[in-house]
C-alpha cells in the first residue's frame, strides 16, 4: 500500500515536471518573454530590444509558410530582435493570436490577411495600443484600411494573369485551376487572373490542402472525366507535385504550372514535368517586414509610399531552375 502510493507520487511529480523541461528547452532558442525569471536572462543573447509577432493564416507544417517562418527567423537572428510565429487557418484563432500579441505588448505585428474582415477588430486593438502593423501575402487591398504601415506581397490577380499568359503561350486552352484553401480570397483572385490571361476555358477545382493525397485523387478524377483538359494550374507547391502524379495517373497530356516553390517543384521543373512555377519569393515576406518594423521603431521609416512592396511574381522555368534548386532545398526559396 505504502509503496504504491510512493510510486504514484513519484510518477505524478515526474509528469508534472515534464512541461517545465520542455519549456526550458524551447526557451533555449531565444525566449525574450522575460517572465520565466532571472535565471534565463543570462542565457539569452541580450540584445533583443524588440519583439515582433508574426501571425499567419496557415497551420504549422505548410511547406510554403515554413519558408516565410525561416525568413522571419533569419531576420530575427541577423537583426538581433525577438520574433514569435503563430498561425491558424481558423479566422477566430488567428484573431485570438493577434489579441494575445497585443496583450503581450509586442513592438510590431506582421499579419497575413486571408480573411481581412475577421482581423479588423484585433488589428484595431493593436493600432489603439500603438503597435505598428505590416500585412503580408494576402490582403493587399485591405491593408491600408486596417491601419497597416505597408503591405509586403505579390498582387494576386497580376500574378494569375502572368501565369495564364504563359500557359496560353504553351498552347493550353482548357485549364483547371486548383483551389486548396476554400476560404482564401487570394486564391480566387489568382484563378480570376489566370482566366483573363489565358483567354480560354478555366474551371476552378476545390481540394483540401490538409489532404494532399485526396487532392491528387480529385485532380485525377477531373482529368479522367474531361480528357479535353490540357492544363492544370496548382496554387501551392504540394498540390503542384500532386498534380504531376495525377496527370501521370490519368494518362493525360495536360501541362502543369504551379504557384510557389519547393525542392520537389524545382526538380519537377528541371525534368520537365512541371512547365513553370510562379515564384512570389515568400522568404522576403518573412524577412522584410521584420526589417521594416525595426526601421519603423528605430527611425520611424516607412516603405512603399502607400503602394505594396512587391516580392513577386517571378517565373522559375527549366532555364533558371538549377540555380534556385539548391536554395529551395535549404528552405529559403
Amino acid at each position, binding site marked *: 500500500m505504502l509503496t504504491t502510493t510512493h510510486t504514484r507520487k513519484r510518477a505524478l511529480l515526474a509528469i508534472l515536471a515534464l512541461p517545465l523541461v520542455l*519549456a526550458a528547452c524551447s526557451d533555449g532558442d531565444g525566449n525574450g518573454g522575460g517572465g520565466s525569471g532571472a535565471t534565463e536572462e543570462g542565457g539569452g543573447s541580450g540584445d533583443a530590444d524588440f519583439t515582433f509577432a508574426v501571425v499567419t493564416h496557415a497551420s*504549422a507544417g505548410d511547406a510554403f509558410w515554413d519558408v516565410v517562418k525561416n525568413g522571419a527567423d533569419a531576420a530575427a537572428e541577423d537583426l538581433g530582435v525577438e520574433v514569435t510565429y503563430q498561425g491558424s487557418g481558423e479566422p477566430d484563432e488567428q484573431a485570438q493570436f493577434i489579441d494575445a500579441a497585443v496583450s503581450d505588448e509586442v513592438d510590431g505585428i506582421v499579419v497575413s490577411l486571408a*480573411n481581412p474582415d475577421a482581423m479588423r477588430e484585433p488589428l484595431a486593438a493593436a493600432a489603439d495600443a500603438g503597435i505598428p502593423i505590416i500585412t503580408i501575402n494576402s490582403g493587399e487591398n485591405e491593408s491600408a484600411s486596417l491601419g497597416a504601415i505597408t503591405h509586403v506581397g505579390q498582387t494576386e490577380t497580376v500574378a494569375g494573369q502572368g501565369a495564364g499568359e504563359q500557359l496560353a503561350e504553351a498552347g493550353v486552352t482548357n485549364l483547371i485551376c486548383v483551389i486548396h484553401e476554400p*476560404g482564401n480570397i487570394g486564391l480566387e483572385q489568382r484563378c480570376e487572373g489566370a482566366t483573363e490571361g489565358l483567354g480560354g476555358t478555366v474551371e476552378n477545382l476545390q481540394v483540401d490542402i490538409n489532404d494532399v493525397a485526396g487532392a491528387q485523387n480529385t485532380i485525377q478524377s477531373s482529368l479522367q472525366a474531361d480528357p479535353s483538359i490540357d492544363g492544370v494550374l496548382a496554387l501551392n507547391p504540394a498540390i503542384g507535385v500532386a498534380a504531376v502524379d495525377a496527370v501521370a495517373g490519368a494518362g493525360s497530356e495536360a501541362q502543369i504550372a504551379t504557384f510557389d516553390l519547393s525542392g520537389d517543384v524545382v526538380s519537377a521543373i528541371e525534368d520537365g514535368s512541371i512547365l513553370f512555377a510562379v515564384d512570389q519569393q515568400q522568404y522576403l515576406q518573412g524577412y522584410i517586414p521584420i526589417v521594416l518594423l525595426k526601421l519603423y521603431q528605430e527611425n520611424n521609416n516607412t516603405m512603399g509610399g502607400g503602394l505594396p512592396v512587391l516580392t513577386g511574381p517571378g517565373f522559375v522555368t527549366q532555364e533558371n531552375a538549377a540555380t534556385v534548386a539548391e536554395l529551395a532545398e535549404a528552405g529559403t526559396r
Partner: protein
Amino acid sequence: MTAAPAATSSDERVVGSGLTRRFLQRPELGAAVGALAVFLFFAIQTDAFATPAGIANWLDASAPLGIMAVAVALLMIGGEFDLSAGVMTATAGLVVATFATEYGVNVWGAFAIALVVGLVVGLVNGVIVVRTGLPSFIVTLGMFLVLQGLNLGVTKIITGTVQVRGLDDAAGYDSARTVFASTVSIFGANVRVTVFWWIAVTALATYVLLRTRPGNWIFAVGGSAVAARGVGVPASRTKIALFMTVSTMAALVGTMQAVRLTSVQANSGIGLEFEFIIAAVIGGCLLTGGFGSAIGASLGALIFGMAKQGIVFANWDSDWFMLFLGLLLLLATWLNLYVRKRAEVLKR
C-alpha cells in the same frame, strides 16, 4: 465505548452527507484541480498570462468552446455523440451572414432562421439515431460531411466566392453586436460578452441536470436506455431533444462568431467537434454516457483555452504547438482522474 462507532457506521448507505464529503463527490473536482494547475503553470511561466488583458484573452478563446462543451456534455451524459456540431457553427454563421447581406433580412431575423436551421439539423440527427438504431458516431459523421458540402456549395452559388462578407452593414447589426460580440471593461481588460453567455449556459445546464426531471432522464438514458424506458423515461424524446440542444447551441455560437468577425468562411468549423468532445471529457464526462457534469465541461473548455493561448504567451516554437497542447491536455486529464480517485478513497 463500542456503541458510538457502531452507530455512525451501522449502515454506510444512509450516512449523512457532510459538506466536505459532498464536495469530494462532485465529478468536476478533478477538472477544477487540472484548471488550477494549468493556470498556475502559465502564470509562473509567462508575463502576460495572469494580467487582466491576458485573462480576457484566454477567457475569450474558451467561451465559445465552453458553451458548446456544455451542450455536448449533456448529449454525452445522454449516451450519444455529435460530430456535426463543429461544422454546424459554420453553417449557422453562413446562414446569418447570407440572409443578412444577400437578402436584406435584419440580423435578428437571420439569427432566428439560424436557430430554426439548428433545431432542424438536431431533429434530423436525433430522429435518425433513434429510429434506425445506428450509432450516433456514424449518423452525425454523415451530417458533418453533408453540412460541409452544403456550406461550400451553397455559399459559392449565392455569393460567387467562398466567404460571405459585409455583415456589419446589415440592419440590426449594432444591437446584435452588443448582445453577441461586444466587450465589457473589467479591471481595464476588455472581457468578451460571450464569457457571460458561457457562464449563463453552464448555470442553466447545471440546474437542468441536477434539479429537474429532464435532468434525471438524461442521466437515465445515458446509463441504460432500455432500463430507463422500463421505468417510464421517454428515452427517444430525451435523446432527440439533446441532439437539438447541441445543434441549436451551435447555431448560437456560429452567430456569435459571424457577428464578431463580420465575415464567415465557408470552410470554417471543421475539426471543432473534437475540441468540444475533448473539453467535455477533460471535464469528467464518460465516453460511455451516464456520467459527467456541465461545470466539468466548462472547466474542460477553460483548460483547453488556457493551454492554447498559454502556449502562445510562452513563445514556444509554433512547430511544436500541437505536441505541447496534446501533452498539456493529457496531463490535465490524468490529474483530473488522479484527484478523483484520491477523492474516492478519502470520502470513505
